[in-house]
């Protein structure tokens, strides 16, 4: 039996920090990087007698996300306590949602990494709101080897999105996460910054293996500590190999051994068993008596639906249908965010063809943004001006390489218009007589190129075009080529 007989099966749990000003159940701010224990109050410290009050915005953001993920939104949702002891959890329980999550089953569709014009669909089990724990740091400096606890993060609103085990490859898992992050960014419900912990991923992984006696499943492993999408991809590929070898060694199937938790070690590029929290599976959930249930009425749902806007998947399709872009080009533009899509549409509205606009965006604009570390909102050339510039190329008023000179000029002179740029760069249209004279002169100077061309070898024309551009940067290379050919033919 070979590795071909085994199918990787993956489900993901994604924790997303919602973009609120304050925590889920208290008015403490949620700013990342504040000095330790300066964003705390009796509620998030779990002091006796303090009572939680739910943040309205967190509910709205969760509903909005749920709607964008095609989730059923139940009319009623409630709060439960998840009980466990850990030093970063001051109350001894986490306020979470057990049996009535704010978002029910849904799905997310995303481009198939193996065939970008097709999509894959992953079903979602649910998405629920919960509060984050604090941060524990083990620091040798503190002398006694104690751990230090910072509770700034405790109580921050998280939405935990749980998928069905519908993913079948490490690449598909990465593509799903990429689309999810893009969607959340479009919705502006989270900043999705993995370095700052506002998007965290755990993966449940096993293999389905075809054996002569039927399909068997290997024990499910939960992989944690996945700090980047690349880490997800690598860890899953590693687990596929590891579980296959493990199964060949011991033949253990799902249900025969307890679920294992492993952590991804980025440096060693391996997963390693993690020490289980004792009895960690026994959380003894029960309804939180401090919090009343929430009714999600139709009015709230409609208000949240109105905020959704076009989702990346819909936008990609529209850019293809409305502008005739390829799936690839549409994806590159959409992946840059809503602002770049709007920029693209404004450029086209100014008279640029979609194809040329897309290529200018992907090459000149995106390269400049990367080089100068800018967002499109900070980009010095506004969409109207770029649209006008490309339209001039489109109409043959400006040669493409001269348009690139104008583009560079605009970068240094944000206030300049096209006329000023033309004047500053000495761009004048070369009339046909002038151009014909120049071509004739070049042909006279290069008799062997003419001879070659007459013999059917046109390679030398490139050198003539280069020479023409050096004498007059405003010449249109296509015109030089056709005039030279014409003159050579006339010579007979």
């Amino acid at each position, binding site marked *: 039996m070979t590795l071909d007989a085994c199918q990787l099966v993956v489900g993901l749990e994604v924790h997303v920090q919602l973009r609120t000003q304050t925590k889920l159940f208290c008015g*403490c701010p949620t700013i990342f990087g504040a*000095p330790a224990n300066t964003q705390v*109050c009796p509620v998030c*410290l779990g002091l006796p007698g303090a009572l939680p009050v739910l943040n309205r915005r967190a509910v709205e953001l969760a509903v909005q996300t749920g709607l964008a993920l095609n989730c059923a939104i139940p009319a009623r949702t409630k709060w439960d306590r998840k009980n466990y002891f850990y030093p970063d959890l001051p109350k001894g329980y986490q306020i979470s949602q057990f049996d009535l999550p704010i978002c029910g089953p849904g799905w997310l569709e995303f481009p198939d990494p193996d065939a970008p014009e097709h999509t894959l669909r992953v079903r979602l089990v649910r998405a629920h709101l919960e509060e984050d724990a604090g941060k*524990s740091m083990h620091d040798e400096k503190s002398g006694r080897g104690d*751990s230090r606890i910072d509770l700034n993060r405790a109580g921050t609103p998280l939405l935990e999105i749980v998928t069905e085990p519908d993913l079948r490859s490490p690449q598909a898992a990465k593509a799903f996460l990429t689309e999810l992050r893009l969607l959340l960014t479009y919705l502006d419900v989270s900043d999705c910054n993995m370095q700052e912990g506002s998007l965290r991923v755990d993966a449940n992984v096993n293999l389905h293996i075809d054996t002569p006696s039927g399909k068997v499943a290997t024990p499910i492993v939960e992989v944690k500590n996945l700090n980047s999408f690349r880490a997800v991809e690598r860890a899953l590929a590693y687990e596929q190999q590891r579980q296959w070898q493990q199964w060949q060694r011991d033949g253990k199937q799902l249900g025969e051994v307890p679920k294992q938790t492993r952590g991804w070690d980025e440096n060693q590029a391996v997963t390693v068993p993690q020490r289980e929290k004792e009895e960690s599976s026994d959380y003894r959930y029960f309804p939180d008596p401090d919090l009343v249930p929430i009714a999600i009425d139709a009015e709230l749902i409609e208000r949240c639906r109105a905020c959704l806007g076009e989702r990346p998947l819909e936008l990609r399709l529209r850019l293809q249908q409305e502008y005739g872009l390829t799936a690839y080009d549409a994806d590159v533009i959409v992946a840059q965010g809503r602002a770049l899509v709007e920029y693209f549409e404004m450029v086209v509205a100014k008279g640029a063809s979609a194809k040329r606009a897309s290529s200018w965006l992907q090459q000149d604009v995106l390269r400049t943004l990367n080089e100068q570390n800018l967002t499109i909102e900070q980009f010095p050339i506004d969409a109207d001006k770029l649209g006008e510039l490309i339209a001039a190329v489109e109409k043959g008023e400006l040669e493409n390489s001269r348009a690139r000179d104008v583009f560079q000029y605009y970068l240094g002179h944000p206030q300049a218009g096209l006329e000023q740029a033309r004047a500053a760069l000495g761009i004048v249209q070369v009339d046909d007589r002038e151009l014909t004279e120049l071509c004739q002169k070049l042909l006279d100077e290069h008799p062997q190129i003419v001879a070659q061309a007459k013999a059917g070898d046109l390679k030398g024309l490139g050198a003539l075009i280069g020479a023409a551009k050096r004498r007059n940067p405003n010449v249109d290379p296509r015109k030089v080529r056709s005039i030279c050919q014409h003159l050579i033919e006339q010579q007979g």
Partner: protein
Amino acid sequence: MQLTIEQVRKVAQLARLEFTEEQLESFSAQLASIISFVEQLKDVDTEGVEVLSHPHALQDALREDEVQEGLSRQAALANAPAHDGECFLVPPVLG
């Protein structure tokens, strides 16, 4: 209702309580009688009654997403058994 010593030991462990063998034995009997008392509720016919998740009829006690002043760090750490002026200190947490 019967409770085994093992069940009581597990519940105690989850609550981080340490009991002697005698305590475990006497608590088994006491817990069993508490559960039996509550079990009487099973006799009530709840056919067609909606599950109650909260005794209050109140719903939607929400607050606006506005920052409110919390505690100073000094005040936050004041009652901690150990701190270093910035963080709470606890016995080492590994992994």
